[in-house]
Every structure is written in C-alpha cells, then in structure tokens.
C-alpha cells in the first residue's frame, strides 16, 4: 500500500516536472505541419490547374484575336475588291465614252453622207431636167426632120412636075429627104441613148434612195446604241452606288471589329493580370515550401532535444 502510494507520488512528480507535454506539443505541431503541407500540395495543384486553365483561355483569346485579324483582313480584301470593281466601272465608263465618241463621229459622217446624197438627188433632178430638155429638143428635131421630109417629098413631087428642070431639084430634095431620115435615125439613136441615161440615172437614183434609207436605219441604230450606252453608264453609276454602300458597310463592320478587338485586348490584359497574380501566388507557394522545410527542420529537433534534456535530468 505504501509502495503503491510512493509510485503514484513519483508519477505525479514526473507528470508535473517532466517534458512529456513539450514532446506532445512537438508531435502535434509536426502533425499539423504535415496536414498543412498536404493542404499546400493540394493548393499548389489547384493553383497549377487554374494557371493551366488560364493559359488555355489566353491561348484561345490569342487564337480568337488571330481570327478577328483574319476577319479584318477579309474585310480589307472585300474593300479592295470593291475598289477594283470601281476601277472596272471606270474602265467601262471610259470604254462607253470612247464608243459614244466614235458613234458621234459615225453620226457626223452619216449626216455628211446624207447631205451628199441630198446633193446627188438635186444633181439627179437637174440631170433629169437636162434629159427632158434634150428629149424635148430631140422631139423638135424629129418634128423638124419630119417637116423637112414632108418638104422634101413635096419638093420631089414639085420637081417631078417640073420635069427635067426639076430633076436636079428632085435630087436635092431626095438628099434632103435622106438627110432628114438620117437625122431622124440619129435622133432616134440619141433619144435611145438619152433614155438609157435616163433609165440608168433612175436606177442610180433608186439605189441612192435605198442607200439613204439604209443610212437612215444606220442613224437609227446609232441612236439606239447611244441609248444603250447611256443605260450602261446609268447601270455602272448604279453599281458605284452599290459599291459605296458596300464600302460603307465594310467601314462600319471594321469599326465594330476594331471595338471587339479592343475589347479582347482589354480582356487579354485582364487575363494576363490574372495569370500574373497566379504566377505570383505560385511563386509565393514555392517560398512557402521552403518555409515548411524550415519549420520541419526546426520542429524535428524538438523530440531529440527533449529526450536529451530528460536523459541529462536522470543523470
């Protein structure tokens, strides 16, 4: 009983003066430190995942920005193509203007030809009058020749009545008659020639008329062509309006695109800011691991130290 009491008393003294509580604190600290390290590993891992995700976001943002730049490039290409269209329109307008110029020259020439035709018509009229006058003269000559013939016949009759005395006169009369006949024949030939001339002139006149008619149709076509050119020019001008509309839309789209790009640049800056903070947190995490090591290095010395002090106390 006494022995048991002494043992209890010794245990009480040991509990009150011993270093076991210090060891206990050390072990507890060590356990907490282990838990802290475990949590730190998890935190670092999460941070790393966040960093990786944000890197992905940044990559995607970069990718998107590239796409936006490509889109901007496409708009620029459309604008350039649209400007090329304007150039084509200018070329068309130039060609139309040139063609219109040539058509005007053609019309001018046609008018001059028309004037020439009119002059020819007048000349033909004068020719017809001359032919008519010649025919009239020929008729008169034939009439005179006929009268001369009758006179010659009458003279021959009178010469025959006169007998021998009128034989000589009869010869003359015969020659006059023959001359009159020749004149008639010649007049007939002239008349035939004149009629040929008249006929040819008539044909020529008809052809000139046809040519005039054709020329008139040509002039009509020139006018129609001019009208077509005017419509082409009008259509080209209309296309210019469309091109201007396209350019306007492109300009507005590019401005919108610029706004989107600015927005993404701002977002990217903010992302980079976040990544910077993540890096900073990650860097701090690495310094924490050094502190954990220091902590561990210090705590790990407590148990042997306590044991050492206790063993010194026993001595």
């Amino acid at each position: 009983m006494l022995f048991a009491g002494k043992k209890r008393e010794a245990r009480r003294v040991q509990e009150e003066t011993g270093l076991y509580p210090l060891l206990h604190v050390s072990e507890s600290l060590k356990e907490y430190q282990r838990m802290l390290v475990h949590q730190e590993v998890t935190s670092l891992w999460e941070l790393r995942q966040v960093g990786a995700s944000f890197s992905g976001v940044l990559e995607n943002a970069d990718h998107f920005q590239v796409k936006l730049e490509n889109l901007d490039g496409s708009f620029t290409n459309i604008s350039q193509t649209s400007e090329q269209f304007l150039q084509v329109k200018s070329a068309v307008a130039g060609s139309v203007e040139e063609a219109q110029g040539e058509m005007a020259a053609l019309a001018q020439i046609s008018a001059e030809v028309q004037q020439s035709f009119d002059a020819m018509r007048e000349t033909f009229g004068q020719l017809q009058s001359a032919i008519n006058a010649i025919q009239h003269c020929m008729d008169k000559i034939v009439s005179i020749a006929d009268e001369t013939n009758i006179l010659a016949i009458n003279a021959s009759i009178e010469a025959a009545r006169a007998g021998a005395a009128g034989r000589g006169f009869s010869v003359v009369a015969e020659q006059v008659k023959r001359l009159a006949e020749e004149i008639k024949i010649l007049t007939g030939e002239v008349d035939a020639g004149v009629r040929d001339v008249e006929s040819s002139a008539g044909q020529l006149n008809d052809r000139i008329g046809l040519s005039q008619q054709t020329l008139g149709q040509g002039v009509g076509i020139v006018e129609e062509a001019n009208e077509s050119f005017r419509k082409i020019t009008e259509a080209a001008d209309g296309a210019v309006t469309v091109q201007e509309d396209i350019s306007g839309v492109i300009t507005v789209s590019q401005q919108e695109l610029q706004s989107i790009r600015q927005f993404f640049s701002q977002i990217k800056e903010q992302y980079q800011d976040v990544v910077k903070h993540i890096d900073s947190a990650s860097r701090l995490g690495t310094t924490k691991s050094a502190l954990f090591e220091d902590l561990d290095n210090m705590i790990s010395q407590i148990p042997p130290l306590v044991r050492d002090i206790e063993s010194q106390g026993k001595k």
Partner: protein
Amino acid sequence: MKQFFGMSQTGSLEEALRGLYQPQFIMLLSNEEQFERHVEELEKRCPGVPSIGCIGMCYQMGVVEHGVGVIAFCDGVAAAAGVLEHVSTMPVKYIQRLERNIQQVRGSSRDTVCIDFCTGNDACVLTTMNTVLRQHGISLVGGTGGEGRVSANGRVYQDAVVYGVVRNLGGCVKTYKENIYHQLGNYRFIASDTDRAKYILGSLNGKSAKQVYKSILHVTDEEILTRTFQNPFGKVNGDDTCIISIKDVQGGALACFRQVNDSDVLILLELGDYRAIVQDTIRQICREFPHRSAIFSVNCLFRYKLFSEQNYMQAYLRDMAALGNHAGFVGYGEHYNNRFVNQSMTCAVFE
C-alpha cells in the same frame, strides 16, 4: 585583409603552411588518412587561432586532390570559430555558440560572413544557423565535407557543423551563388511521396519521379545517374532555383543529394553555356567590388568533374584568379545562406 593559400600534393602540412604568418582564421582541407593528424599539427603550429577543417579537395591555381591545403585570412580580420554538434538530430542545442561568436567578432551584415563545413543533414543545419544569422543579416557560404568528419579549433568532430564567423575590418563582404543551368522546357512539378531523411523523391505531379524523368529525357535507368550532369532538378524558391542532383534510382523513386519535401515545386534544368555564365559572374563581382582583397569559393564536386571532363577546370581557375586572390574547396553540397544546393558555386568576396 589578405588571403593565404598553401598546399602540399603529398599531404605535408608543414609544406602547406610555409609562408603563413600571423593568421587570424584558418581553413584546413585535408584527406581521409591524415585529417586527424593535420588537425592536431595545425593547432600546435597555430595555437589559439580560430580554425575549421574538413576532408576535401581544395584549389587555387590548381586542384589538390589527395594532399592538404590551407586557406587562411590574415591582417584586418576578426574571426571566431565554433561547432554545432549532433547535427543529424538537434543542432539547435548548441545554437547559442553561434550567437556568442557573432557577438565576439561584432559581426554585421555589411562586413561579416559565416563560412561552414558540415558532415550532413545540411538543410536542417542551415535552417538552424539561419535562425541566428538572419537576425544579424549575416550571409553564409560553405559546403559539405567528406567522410563525416570536420574540425574546429584543433578538435575533430563527427556529426557536426563547424563554422567561422569572419569579419572584414577593411571593407564589405558579399556572397554569390552561381548556377550554370537553366530551365528545360516548361515542365513544373509538385513533389510528393518524399522521404526527407533519405532524400527520396517519390512522385512528380502524382506520377513516378523516375518515369517522369525518363519519359521527358528518353533515358534508361542506368543513364539517369550520369544524366544529372546535364539535367538535374531545380527546386523553385521564389525567384531563386536550388539545384538538386540525382544520386540513385530506387524502384519508381529517385534518391537525391539533397532532401526534397512534399509540396516542393521542382523544374527540370539543362546545362547552359557555363563559360559565358562564369564570365557573367566575374563581371558582376568586378562591377560590385572594384577593389577585392580575397575571394573564397565552394565548388560542387559535380562541377569539378564536369569542368575536368570538358578540360575547362584549369581555365576556370585562371579566370577566377583574374578576380584577385581566389581559393576554395570542392564540396559535396554547397551552402548559400539558408539554402542547401547541389552542382553550384557559392563564394564570399571580401573588399
């Protein structure tokens, strides 16, 4: 101040000490067989002079591989040497010694540096020492010695860190760390399944560390150990990177030359243009210290092997000698303030 370097390729301490007068702080770099004797002899030759020592190679214009070397500071130096014992379990038990030594030399951040040689558990040792040094703003440069033995003030210790608190009475002191590696790719890993006592790295981002290393670098198990020269790991600490060498393959895990902790963020490194990087370091030192009285450095054994293989070691020592009086030792791990690193160079430059 003046820096003395004496050496004997045959291991003669007498020869190594020739020309040394009135040293104020001594560092002994000896070999496994003669270490204890050299420590004893040194204490006899220079009694009462603060000294620290370890087993390892040293260099100035050439490398002393198996002999003995002495690096000493003379003129214009205030120094104190000390030891923290039981470093594998509780170096903090002796931490007051460091505090006393700093008080003794009246050390300050501007003109004082702590130089240490350690037998192991380096990260824990540096954490412990830093709890005192950071309060004074004093930097630390040092390394791991060989064979588990170090010395301080004429006595040999096992499982200990020996240190010298050195104050430059003639100007400033600044420490540097040189990393000849840069990040490979964009790989970033979170370490887990680690064993800090055995320096085991089990998993990277939840996958077998060995498989991750092999799949990225396309190497076999056997090639991993030599590939660490080209591609060690880097432990990210804020803006700084601490190099971690691979020692061995253990199942799906990798054993390293430095402890790796759960939640450590690691990256893969690749060897850079080390000649250019060395020149950059030299230029930086020249820029920041136009007048230099001494440079004491610690070079990793891996760097020594790499530079030797590349026929660069002699040229490297010549380049460093251009800075002025340069000497140092080859460590199995390098110390820079509270960071334990591999495959690096750390140095203290005295104005």
